[in-house]
């Protein structure tokens, strides 16, 4: 094999005093060769991004390199001055980031932001920079590049912004491209396009690519070689084929197994006599407030949505952002009032209830929210957070708090009722969120992207917990997710939504193995690592 473009040897990065461990990464060594994609995989806190930050000279404040070397083109990047490092950035090492929504300056036109890369390294004249920016936008496949170059970031979609980021990183044809979770924030079909684009550009330019991700599906899709990290150390390093098919380390095996979707369950429900929830012809339109001189805009978030949910069933609602799936969930818990249509929960129409009558029925449908960090009041002890619902419904305070203890026990967090939310990890908080939803003894739980913000191993635990509770407490679940692999693992039946409409519904097995709608096929084809998943299904 040729000499590596980047060679990391024994790199150790010290965290500031008081962090939860002394080193961000410890004694890490790996190479990135030209014309290969090295995937660095790990869960949050594994230190997978830290080595990349050291390569770029963009380490967060307080993190220092205390050992090892990072060799690039014969020089140790750790010993460079800021000025020397700056001259490498953008010119010979490009980088793209996770959040396309915030990674571009909102006040500058796209063309100007690409032009800055040339300006930073004193290349080309201003008109040449714009001409080159246009070529780059064409190369990364932005629709209407002549318009896009004059656009502000807010006028572009997430996928288009990520293409702009890639155009910027490629502007000066760097030898090394670092991509830090570049597709994590994108919809699945957009993710597939961006992965294809990166792989394609890598081949055409013969770059070395260091691709940081938490998702083994993405690894299966794109990696030449894989480096698995855990708590700052490398646990496994090898070719993509070896690591995916014959993982040596238990942790790698656990991560690969934790990817949901490697099995699709048999439908467990048979046609029931009476549905628990019956939704028919639900409509919801959002209107942007028009002014005196401004026309209002209408978005059909729900367009004639009808379905039934049987008692004890888990019904998955899948779709990309903007499909109306979250609005559906919010209508079912009546946080949102549908414009027309009915929502009947065991005989009572929730859609028309108001005031006190609505308040009384609310406890029957409860919600688990997406963000385990934002959905708990930071100043309320978790026991109280759980007890507040029953107290509001007239249960005595002492009794409600005692129940909260039992519920925490039930979700696997005994004896923590008097702690505050910040003392818990994301997975633990989501358990608290589940306990809170259960506190009112609901008949139906709406889980809106309940595991999307969690690492895969935690995701698997929470899904398992939900499954277990559902059986023990005979609950029904409306499970909203953008992640088809998660849906495949937990749902009995699936609704596929697009632009506010249900495009397909059926048993999970039918939807996944024999999709009818073109859009469903498109979604399934976009799942990273799909061939592998189907092979083992």
């Amino acid at each position, binding site marked *: 094999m040729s000499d590596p473009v980047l060679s990391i040897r024994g790199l150790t990065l010290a965290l500031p005093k008081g962090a939860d461990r002394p080193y961000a990464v410890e004694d890490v060594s790996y190479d990135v060769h030209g014309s290969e994609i090295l995937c660095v995989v790990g869960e949050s806190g594994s230190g997978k991004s830290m080595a990349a930050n050291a390569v770029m000279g963009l380490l967060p404040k307080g993190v220092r390199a205390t050992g090892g070397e990072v060799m690039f083109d014969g020089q140790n990047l750790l010993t460079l001055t800021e000025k020397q490092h700056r001259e490498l950035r*953008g010119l010979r090492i490009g980088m793209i980031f996770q959040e396309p929504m915030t990674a571009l300056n909102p*006040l500058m036109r796209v063309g100007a932001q690409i032009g800055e890369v040339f300006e930073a390294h004193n290349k080309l004249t201003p008109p040449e920079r714009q001409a080159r920016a246009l070529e780059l936008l064409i190369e990364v496949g932005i629709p209407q590049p002549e318009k896009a170059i004059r656009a*502000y970031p*807010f006028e572009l979609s997430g996928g288009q912004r990520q293409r702009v980021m890639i155009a910027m990183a490629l502007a000066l044809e760097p030898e090394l491209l670092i991509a830090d979770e570049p597709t994590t924030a994108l919809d699945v079909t957009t993710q597939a396009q961006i992965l294809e684009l990166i792989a394609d550009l890598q081949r055409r330019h013969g770059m070395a690519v260091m691709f940081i991700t938490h998702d083994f599906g993405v690894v299966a899709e794109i990696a030449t070689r894989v480096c698995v990290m855990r708590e700052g150390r490398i646990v496994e390093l090898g070719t993509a084929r070896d690591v995916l098919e014959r993982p040596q380390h238990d942790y790698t095996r656990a991560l690969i197994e934790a990817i949901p979707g490697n099995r699709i369950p048999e439908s467990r429900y048979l046609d029931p006599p009476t549905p628990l929830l019956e939704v028919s012809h639900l409509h919801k339109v959002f209107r942007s407030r028009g002014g*005196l*001189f401004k026309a209002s805009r209408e978005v059909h978030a729900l367009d004639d949505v009808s379905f039934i949910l049987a008692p004890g069933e888990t019904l998955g609602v899948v779709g990309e952002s903007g499909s109306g799936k979250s609005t559906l969930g919010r209508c079912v818990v009546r946080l949102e009032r549908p414009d027309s249509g009915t929502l009947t929960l065991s005989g009572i129409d929730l859609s028309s209830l108001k005031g006190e009558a609505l308040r009384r029925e609310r406890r029957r449908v409860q919600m688990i929210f997406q963000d385990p960090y934002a959905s708990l009041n930071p100043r309320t002890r978790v026991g109280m957070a759980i007890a507040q619902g029953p107290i509001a419904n007239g249960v005595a305070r002492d009794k409600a708090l005692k129940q909260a203890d039992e519920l925490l026990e039930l979700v696997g967090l005994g004896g923590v009722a008097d702690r505050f939310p910040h003392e818990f990890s994301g997975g633990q908080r989501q358990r608290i969120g589940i306990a809170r939803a259960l506190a009112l003894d609901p008949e139906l739980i709406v889980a809106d992207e309940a595991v999307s913000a969690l690492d895969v191993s935690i995701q698997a635990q929470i899904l398992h917990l939900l499954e277990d509770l559902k059986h023990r407490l005979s609950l029904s679940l409306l499970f909203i997710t953008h992640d088809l692999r998660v849906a495949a693992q937990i749902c009995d039946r699936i609704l596929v939504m697009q632009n506010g409409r249900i495009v397909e519904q059926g048993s999970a097995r039918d939807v996944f193995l024999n999709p009818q709608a073109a859009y469903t096929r498109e979604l399934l084809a976009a799942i990273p690592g799909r061939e592998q998943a189907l092979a083992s299904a």
Partner: protein
Amino acid sequence: MLYARLIASRLFKAVIVLFMIIILNFFLIQLAPGDPAAILAGEAGATDEEFLRQLRERFGLDQPLYVQLWRYVSGVATLDFGYSYRQQMPVLDLILARLPATLLLTGTAFVLSLVLGIVAGSLAAARVKKPSGSIIMALALLFYATPLFWVALMSVVVFSVYLDWLPAYGLYTVGAGHTGFALALDVGKHLILPATTLALFFMAIYTRMTRASMLDASQQDFVKTARAKGLKNSVIQRRHILRNALLPIITLAGLQAGQMVGGAILTETVFAWPGIGRLMFEALQQRDYNLLLGIFFFSAALVIVFNIITDLVYGLADPRIKGGS
């Protein structure tokens, strides 16, 4: 085109708001205790009923309220703000005579505080955790906390009385007969102390706000993108961080600008500056209601104008607003 429509809609709303302010002002003055006719009569030394009746008739005070209101509103619509009985001059002439001096003072203070505040704030943000940055913030806190009148008096004591560098009061040197450039220089000298005094407080606020806003903006993802491009730190500070940090400053500057007519009473009084602030103070003491109403109208109109300008500037500074998202 969207922009032109935006301006048209804002102007239309402004006219309605202004009309409501005129009506509100009128009733506010009606609520004030004391009979203007009795005060006028008292000053003239006469107390008999017949004279009072004549006064009321002459100034329309004997008419029902709605007639008085109608007369006032239709007067304002034709830029007739009535007559100041105390000063024996039309209100409009009085205000127009004083307005330039006030706008010169408050406008200079506005520009001074905005420019110095943003510069000081950027420096403090770039030097966070360094002694020089802390010194800037300590000074800003001092200016923020010190009462305006005390700064005014002390600056007179130091720069006029003790050092004798600058004149202590007035708009220009009375009796010197300067014209042209010499006059401008003379006014400029007189302007330095009051304008600086007035600017200090807002400068302190801009400094603190610019710093906080820039530190906030420097945490944003696009700053990391800019660094990954290999841009120089100074370019990142100016083009990426400062530009994004300026948005809240525009809001605050709009508020300050709206106070330009009525916000300098204290400074004008200490420095004997012949502006609107002092005119308003005198009108208040003398219950010169027509004059007060006129000044209220001008202050309100200025606030509305600067609100519109602020919105337009915001639209220029942040493309997301013009796009209506």
